[in-house]
C-alpha cells in the first residue's frame, strides 16, 4: 500500500481477518462498518453471527423504511433487522456470553492501547466530561480475541499505541490486535509485532510510535 487506509478500507481488512463461523460483537462507532465486509458462505449468506449487547444474536443490517421497528435496535440504538436464525435474550444472558468466553471476537474503538494490550476507550478523564462505559469493560475482558480499530495518531500526531496508557483503563492486557490506518499490530507476550503497513515504512513507524516494534 502506498497510502494509509481510510476507515472503510480498514473495515474491509478487519472483516477479511474474522474467521467464518465466528460469533462476533462489533462496537459502536467505526467498528460498525465492518458488518459490510464480513465473510459469506458458498451461498452468499453471512458466515459470521453478530451479537449485540442489548440481547440478540443474528443481527442483520440497519433497518430502512418499513423495516424500522422501535423494539429492534443495536447497541448504538440504531434500528436494525433480524436474520433467519436470530435469537433474543435478556441482558444477563447477553453479558454472560461475553464474560463466559463464548464470543470469538469483538472489535472496539480506542483512545489508546498499550504495548501489553491495556485498553483505554471509555473516558477521557477530563473533569468536565461525563463518563459513560456501557458494555466496553465487559467486552474487553470477555471476548476471546479483542481487536481494536483506530486511527494510529491523534490530530496532534501523537501515537495512540503507547508504552503505558495515560487515559483511564477499560481493561488490562486484553487487546490481541490493533488495526490502524497505518499498520496492523499483533500484541504478543514477547512484544508488539507489525503484521502490515500502509503508506509508511517500518523505519518511519518505529520513529513515530514510542513502542518497541518487532518486524
Amino acid at each position, binding site marked *: 500500500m502506498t497510502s494509509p487506509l481510510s476507515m472503510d478500507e480498514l473495515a474491509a481488512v478487519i472483516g477479511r481477518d474474522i474467521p467464518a463461523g465466528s460469533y462476533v460483537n462489533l462496537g459502536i462507532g467505526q467498528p460498525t462498518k465492518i458488518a459490510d465486509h464480513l465473510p459469506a458462505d458458498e451461498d452468499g449468506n453471512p458466515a459470521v453471527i453478530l451479537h*449485540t*449487547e*442489548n*440481547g*440478540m444474536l443474528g443481527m442483520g443490517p440497519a433497518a430502512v423504511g418499513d423495516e*424500522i*421497528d*422501535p*423494539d*429492534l*435496535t443495536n447497541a448504538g*440504538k*440504531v*434500528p436494525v433487522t*433480524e436474520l433467519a436464525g436470530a435469537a*433474543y*435474550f*435478556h*441482558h*444477563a444472558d447477553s*453479558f454472560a456470553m*461475553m*464474560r463466559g468466553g463464548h464470543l470469538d471476537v469483538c472489535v472496539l474503538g480506542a483512545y489508546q492501547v498499550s504495548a501489553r494490550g*491495556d485498553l483505554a476507550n471509555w*473516558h477521557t478523564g477530563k473533569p*468536565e*466530561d*461525563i*463518563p*459513560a*462505559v*456501557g*458494555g*466496553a*469493560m*465487559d467486552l474487553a*475482558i*470477555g471476548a476471546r480475541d479483542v481487536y481494536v480499530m483506530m486511527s494510529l495518531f491523534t490530530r496532534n500526531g501523537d501515537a495512540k499505541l503507547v508504552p503505558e496508557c495515560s487515559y*483511564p*483503563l*477499560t*481493561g*488490562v492486557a486484553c487487546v490481541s490486535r490493533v488495526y490502524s490506518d497505518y499498520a496492523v499490530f499483533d500484541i504478543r507476550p514477547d512484544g508488539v509485532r507489525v503484521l502490515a503497513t500502509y503508506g509508511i515504512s517500518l523505519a518511519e513507524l518505529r520513529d513515530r510510535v514510542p513502542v518497541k516494534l518487532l518486524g
Partner: protein
Amino acid sequence: MSRAQVHQTADQAVAGIEDGSVILVGGFGLAGMPFELIDALIRQGATDLTIVSNNAGNGDVGLAALLAAGQVRKVVCSFPRQADSWVFDGLYRAGKIDLELVPQGNLVERMRAAGAGIGAFYCPTAVGTPLAEGKETREIDGRIYVLEYPIKGDYAFISAYRADTLGNLVYRKTARNFGPVMATAATTTIVQVSEIVPVGTLDPEAVVTPSIYVDRIVAVQGRQYTVEGAR
C-alpha cells in the same frame, strides 16, 4: 409472592410509591422503556428517588422527563452520556444529581444476584480500572476478580409485550433487555404491557418472565415513541 393485580390505569399501578424509593427502570435507550409507568410516577410525585437503568434518559421523554421533574436524587447506570442526554447532562453539571457508573454487565448481574438470593459475587470485569478502585479483589485460579454486591429495587418498572392475568410475560425483540432480570430484583414489580390475555393463552414454553416475579400489571395504549425519538 401473592398473585399479581391487574390495574385499569398506570396511575393505579404506581400508587403508593414512597419518597426515597429505589426504582429499577427497564429499557435500553427507548426500547423497552416503560413510558406510561414513568409518566404516571411524574403525576404521582414521589421524590428523592434512586433510579437504576442502563441510560439516564433520552430526549425529553420517559426517564428524561422524570429527571426534568426533579424527582430523582441519584442515577445508577452504565451509559449516561449520549447525544440526546441533555436533561441528565444539565443536572449532573449543575451538581443536582448523583451518578454511580457501573459497567453494563455488572449492572445487570448485580440485579440478577439480588433476584437470585446471591450475597455477592466475584467478577472479572473492570479489574485494574477506576471503576474497581476500593473494591475487594481475589485471585481465583490465576485470575483477578472484583467482589460485586447485589442491587435490589423497592420497585421495578418494566415494559413487556403481553401478559396473562396471572402475570406471565413475553417480550418483543430487543425491547426485552433488562426486563426479565429487573422483574426478579425488586420487592414490587410493576409491568406495563400492550395487551393482557386470558390465562392459558401464552405458550408456557415461551413465557420469559414467570408470574411469580410480577406484582402489578396494566395494559397501555401502544408505544408512544418513534425511532427518531430514540436517537
